[in-house]
């Protein structure tokens, strides 16, 4: 109860009183007593509740390193990094058990990607412990918290969003009933009508909530969207929009001490066209604006959109908590700026594919062209790497052993043969006499997989010195057609 005399009102009530019809904030003490005859009333004591919350927070801190008091009866927790302790579900169970043991039997615990989704879930009837995990909803990408939360919130009533009462009233007057209807409105129209409050409400409706448990980094906004007015039709306008969004995003990330490892660009198109998005990864996490803008430009250069863009968004889908500082040497002419190198490799990946920066791996296979493979190289280490195994010293090994060049797709070529032995080959539109041809080598295998093969290989040398690896399928039974020769590669 707060206030005195006839003006005293109920500020908070327990579950039994609420079931009996007591409405905190609305009912006076006399009206509440009319609902429950034996109502026990206590004067409101801020210090008492403060101490109670502090005691509860101390218990909860045993389970998670970040506990934030978010108002009376509300706590925000950092649920990340609980994999070794059973994951988020186990954490939620532990928090609930601790809260109940502390005497709060009607407690609710929800794990979600954003505060707005977690609070909305706590206010819904249901189990005391609930999880809205990333990837739980069909069609959502794992790790994209905002998308999952947006789907969860979409069908909930608008009243579950923590909106300004006046804004809430106006939105209801406009006929909006669910959170999803608010999320579907365009950013431009909301900004024109309600300014920044409209955009913030739309972000909440889409599961983007800058609030969160106060970890060492503070709020954790991951998506910044910028409405483009007029709609952008050129690359430069889009890059400008993405740059502005990046500036805002990086400010938050820098405050957190985080770096961007992977981001996604969102484009909302004019008219009836569906929104589109593109992902781009960095070879090395960074918070430098320049490489990120270059990355965005590289992505946009390869993108063709069917309509002008009305809004561009930049979302961080992977970030790392690390602070790194490279010390340059002013007196070294070839100082290596790792961020510049990362930006270059990122642009190459964006234009030529993620596997364009590659490293070789050995493969256990007896076919010469399959004894190694190229795999995408995720990270280029410029700092002091762990000591690799010693490499052979070129100076101590004077003999040069031949390396191979292989064609990605073996080329068909014409071969003149005698008794199954190749005599000359037509290469680069010329016939070359073979100076030597190794005896046939028969290879077969892979029948257990899609790489099934049965073939004859020859290593041949032309009179000009070219050493070629030729192959042809093993001839079938008598009368079956003979398949042609192919050039696999050559010694170089």
């Amino acid at each position: 109860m707060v206030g005195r005399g006839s003006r005293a009102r109920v500020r908070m009530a327990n579950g039994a009183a609420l079931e009996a019809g007591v409405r905190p904030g609305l009912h006076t003490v006399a009206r509440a007593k009319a609902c429950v005859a034996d109502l026990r009333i206590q004067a409101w004591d801020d210090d008492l509740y403060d101490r109670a919350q502090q005691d509860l927070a101390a218990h909860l801190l045993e389970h998670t390193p970040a506990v934030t008091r978010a108002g009376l009866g509300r706590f925000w927790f950092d649920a990340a990094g609980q994999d070794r302790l059973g994951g988020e579900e186990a954490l939620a169970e532990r928090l609930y058990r601790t809260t109940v043991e502390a005497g709060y039997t009607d407690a609710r615990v929800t794990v979600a990607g954003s505060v707005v989704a977690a609070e909305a879930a706590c206010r819904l009837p249901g189990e005391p412990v609930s999880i809205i995990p990333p990837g739980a909803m069909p069609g959502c990408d794992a790790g994209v918290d905002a998308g999952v939360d947006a789907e969860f919130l979409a069908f909930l009533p608008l009243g579950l969003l923590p909106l300004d009462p006046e804004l809430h009233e106006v939105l209801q007057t406009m006929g909006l009933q669910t959170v999803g209807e608010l999320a579907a409105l365009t950013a431009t129209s909301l900004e024109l009508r309600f300014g920044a409050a409209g955009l913030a409400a739309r972000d909440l409706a889409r599961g983007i909530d800058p609030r969160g448990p106060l970890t060492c980094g503070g709020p954790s906004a991951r998506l910044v969207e910028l409405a483009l007015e007029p709609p952008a039709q050129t690359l430069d306008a889009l890059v400008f929009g993405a740059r502005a969004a990046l500036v805002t995003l990086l400010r938050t990330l820098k405050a957190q001490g985080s770096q961007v490892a992977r981001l996604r660009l969102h484009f909302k198109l004019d008219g009836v066209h569906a929104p589109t998005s593109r992902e781009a990864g960095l070879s090395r996490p960074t918070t430098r604006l320049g490489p990120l803008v270059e990355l965005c430009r590289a992505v946009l250069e390869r993108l063709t959109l069917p309509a002008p863009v009305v809004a561009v968004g930049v979302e961080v889908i992977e970030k790392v908590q690390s602070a790194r500082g490279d010390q340059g040497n002013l007196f070294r002419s070839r100082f290596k700026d790792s961020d510049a190198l990362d930006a270059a490799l990122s642009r190459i990946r964006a234009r030529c594919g993620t596997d364009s920066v590659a490293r070789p791996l050995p493969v256990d296979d007896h076919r010469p062209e399959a004894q190694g493979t190229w795999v995408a190289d995720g990270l280029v280490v410029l700092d002091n790497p762990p000591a690799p195994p010693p490499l052979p010293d070129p100076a101590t090994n004077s003999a040069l052993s031949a390396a191979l060049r292989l064609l990605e797709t073996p080329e068909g070529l014409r071969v003149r043969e005698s008794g199954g032995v190749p005599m000359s080959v037509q290469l680069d539109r010329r016939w070359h006499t073979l100076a030597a041809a190794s005896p046939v080598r028969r290879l077969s295998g892979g029948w257990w997989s899609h790489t099934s093969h049965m073939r004859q290989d020859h290593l041949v040398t032309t009179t000009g010195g070219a050493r070629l690896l030729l192959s042809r399928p093993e001839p079938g039974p008598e009368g079956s057609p003979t398949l042609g020769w192919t050039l696999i590669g050559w010694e170089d």
Partner: protein
Amino acid sequence: MSSVSVSLVSEETRAARVSALQEVLRARFPTAAPEIAARADGVGGTGVEALDRLLPLGGLPRGQVTEWVVARSGGSATLLRRLVLHWARPDEKVALVDAGRTLAAADWVTPARSAALTFVRPSEPRDGPWCAELLLRAGGFSLVVLDGVELRSRAAQRLSHLARGSDNALLVIRPTWTSGHVGRGGLATVRLRLAPADSPLLGPGKTPPDRAPITAALTKGGPPAQVEVSRETFPTHWLCAHPLVPDRRGGATRGRSW
């Protein structure tokens, strides 16, 4: 600024002064002279002694473009592997742009164990010069190799300009089997022509020899010269896979399958 005066003096004095004048010109205009201006740390060896003797400064000049014009089986991959092993050190990063996508992964497993080596394999050969340009601009590599692509004049100009400005060495490996000509112009400061030595006619059914020498000829950047580099080819028992892969076949010996 240096100044040199020349007067009509004896033959020896005149030769000495002309030599001094050449030195000044080389120092002042390093790219104008037919030969390259030598700098104390401006050259990196190739790891092949015969090739270093052939090259004008004893190796690949930094801040310059070196071009290898190679025939099929001309030994470019073999020499390149040795060159990369020689260059790649913790303080000397190497980028290899395999624009032709012809390098065999199995041959590069050992050099790739060094963190100093970065492979770039663009999906389209025409993106190769663009990748090399970005890597040169980034300035993180002492040696950038662009392998298996025919350079257009504008791209060649840009790369040459970047190499000179960045103090990094740029090696362009140009195959003749794709373009069909060896080329005479271009902006390379040093050009080597690599080709296999002619093979004697052994006859069908005869095993190719285990040694296939490479002929390297200097065609630009110094007086014409030619050397022969010995190269061992694959043993012909064809049994063993890569040495890093455990061999589970009973009859295997060392070496590789070709």
